[in-house]
């Protein structure tokens, strides 16, 4: 009797485990997904070329650096309150400069060397940031702002002028005319890798530490190790972002970084990743990046001429506030529902007490 009872309750339990999680995911992803849908519909009218094989190929190439950058920022943002990585823009540009100026010009343009360099340097740099934030308890904003400034300067020291060439394989990535490109597979591979990562115990620990590091610490979970680990995971994706930026630019540009940081932060927040730590999903962040990228396309179709860059900044700002507002609306609806259930009391308790 006990055995059967247990089995039944286990099955019920695991079914119950899925339903609310799916509902939670749906509310968290609603805002970026709605924005994305609206943009795709708009572009179907204003820029139908996007839906050609060539259009998709160039969209993949152009959006990959932003998507991977935002993917890199996600674990870092989840792992600590205020865990926003401002260094990403100039650092990705540094990888771009390093690949072109140090590797390719010295004959090390083969994929193995490029991937090893980008991912290795990405992990190395994030390890430093992670130790400063996780072990020395410095504020993430300050540490990563320092990283931003250091690489903004360093890039120009290494390479004062844009220039250089990329190896043939990266040239083909950038010039793809069909959606069937290695870059698309790289993005899909990253998605699968993240999905696998998000199911690990370590990923759960990242969320728990980000949600309440004090509770985690007194319960025996080391916030330092978890945060350093989250930065290392981010380092892998930031390395890949450096490679895809090189494929997009087809050369090295030391000045690319500054605006990229702001775009990535906007995408992250539009994607529903909370800067309070502990909350957010990579899927949301990626959709947020796609949103930001598609907004650029829509603005491009408006033929604004020289005022385009001002208008686009204005629109990014409006979208950012709008997304936060929408997010808070869905949040408060859930909150009110919770309060109502609480106020009426749990029927089960009353039944037992009668």
């Amino acid at each position, binding site marked *: 009797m*006990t055995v059967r009872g*247990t089995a039944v*309750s*286990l099955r019920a*339990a*695991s079914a*119950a*485990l*899925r339903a*609310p*999680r799916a509902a*939670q995911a749906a509310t968290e992803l609603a805002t970026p997904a709605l924005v994305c849908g609206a943009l795709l519909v708009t572009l179907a009218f204003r820029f139908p070329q996007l839906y050609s094989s060539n259009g998709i190929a160039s969209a993949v190439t152009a959006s990959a650096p932003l998507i991977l950058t935002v993917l890199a920022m996600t674990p870092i943002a989840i792992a600590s309150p205020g865990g926003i990585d401002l260094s990403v823009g100039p650092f990705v540009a540094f990888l771009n400069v390093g690949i072109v100026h140090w590797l390719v010009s010295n004959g090390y343009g083969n994929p193995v060397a490029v991937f090893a360099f980008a991912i290795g340097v990405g992990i190395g740099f994030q390890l430093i940031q992670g130790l400063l934030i996780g072990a020395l308890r410095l504020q993430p904003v300050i540490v990563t702002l320092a990283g931003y400034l250091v690489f903004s300067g360093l890039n120009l020291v290494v390479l004062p002028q844009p220039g250089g060439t990329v190896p043939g394989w990266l040239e083909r990535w950038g010039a793809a005319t069909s959606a069937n490109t290695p870059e698309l597979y790289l993005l899909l591979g990253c998605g699968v890798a993240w999905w696998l990562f998000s199911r*690990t*115990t*370590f990923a*759960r*620990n990242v*969320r*728990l530490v980000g*949600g*309440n590091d*004090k*509770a*985690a*610490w*007194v*319960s*025996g*979970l*080391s916030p330092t*190790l*978890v945060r350093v*680990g989250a930065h290392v995971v981010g380092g892998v994706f930031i390395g890949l972002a450096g490679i895809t930026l090189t494929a997009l630019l087809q050369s090295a540009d030391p000045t690319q970084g500054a605006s990229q940081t702001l775009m990535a932060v906007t995408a992250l927040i539009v994607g529903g990743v909370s800067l309070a730590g*502990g*909350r957010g999903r990579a899927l949301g962040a990626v959709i947020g990046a796609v949103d930001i990228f598609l907004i650029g396309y829509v603005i491009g179709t408006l033929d604004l001429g020289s005022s385009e860059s001002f208008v686009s900044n204005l629109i990014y700002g409006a979208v950012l506030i709008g997304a936060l507002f929408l997010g808070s609306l869905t949040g408060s609806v*859930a*909150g009110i*529902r*919770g*309060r*109502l*259930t*609480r*106020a*009426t*009391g*749990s029927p*089960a*308790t*009353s039944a*037992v*007490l*009668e």
Partner: protein
Amino acid sequence: MQTNVRVVEPSDIPTPAIRDGAEPVSGPAPAVTVSGVRKRFGDVRALDGCSITAFPGEIHAIVGENGSGKSTLVKVLSSVLPPDEGEVSILGRQPSSPRAALRGGIATVFQEILVVEGASVLDNLFLGHDGLLRSGRSTKEKVALAEPLLERLMQDSIDVSLPIDDLPLSTRQWIVIARALLGDPRVLILDEATAALDEQSSRRLFETLERLAGDGVCVLLISHRIAELTSFADRATVLRDGATVGTLTRDEITGEQLLRLMSGGSLSAERSAPARRELGPPAIRLDGLRIAPGSPPIDAVVSAGEILGIAALEGHGAPELVQTIAGIRAPLAGTVEIVADGRSHVVRSLRDAERAGVGYVSGDRTREGLFPNLSVLQNFGMALYRRSTRAGVIAFGPIRRRFVEQSERLSITARRQSSPVTSLSGGNQQKVLIGRVLAASPRIVVLNDPTRGVDIRTKQDLYALLRELAAEGKAVILFSTEIEELVDLCRRVVVLRHGGSHTTISEGELTPARVLAGMFGRGETGSGAA
């Protein structure tokens, strides 16, 4: 249904001598030995020569007023804080980190309810139980362990996959208790673990603790509820000003003994009989008040000079009712009417409540009272700022004078007005908050479980103050989770069930047993009950 799987080693089985409360002569080795521990924070000596010996199989209470160093001791025992001086040996070792302590079989339920918002109940339950990269158990195994345990503790089933965010404080308290139990500890430390639980739940917890002690677990217990200590503790070590002043055996643990040791003999524990007074005209009128959807209406009249008690089990609407009277929540239906100086005010918002002269004091100081980043004086003056500004600049002179007045009346012990409010003990923080309300000269005082986590001496001061307020002709509404408090202070107690008034118990019939019976739905039905 045995869920908490435990291997009892022969040496863990307690000798009957310990359960009887006597010092064992040649029994098992102590589970916890603390000797001469000192810990300072700046120039505050939190622990100053603290020693405790606790054995496997006993429920050992650690007793002391707020500020006597109990919580610091708990942090030292759980290796959250290293001691400055002295020896700590738990199960023969001195763990160097909370993780090492947990792995060594020491589990702690801290006073602060430490949960991760946004994470599921299950993840909160098994927080820290997993390794950094690998989980010890599958989700299925975790659910199979967690659900029966929570059900046994809470007498209620709960979906462990839900996020913890919307759960009430009492459920969160059970979750942190269950987290400690899931580690199968050999030393279990509970710091005010019943603070957020109602009496019935507390009793269930103590029955669990007694079972664990029977299995050879050493339970260290901190509680301000004397009744819990006298009925459940095998021995009690009393701290005063960070030092151990004595250890009582089971027979010696009485309210008087504890109070005498804690206060150094200066405090008399006698109950002053409520003074017979004529009540004034009606001051508060609740008319068909509904506080939750579907709950029965509440009707009541409180006279000037009366202390009306509110009693209810957790989740039956008592905090909601007092918050509605204080204008923090809007009533769903019906009215809250305050009559003052012949004028009637209807309270629907905080602004109405302020105009009507309603002062609100909450026992949940972190959420409903303190600004932890501000000083004692700034916290005190919060309700006065609007009135004491000159050309838009706060004039602190009058506020300071008011503070001196109130701190004499309430005997607040703060070294400096400018020190951060968090440097005060819980009892003194509560006094600052009460002083804040009184400084605005309210006509009505509404209290939401004001003695939660407050030491006994402060409680006594507070009781005297409430009687004084009533004698001045103020109407007082007191919700408390401690029934004895209500019975001592009030002429009438309204018992709520399901958000409506279930019964009103008046003087003559007012006993703890009657109130408790009403809370469990057994008293005679009052006006508003369904």
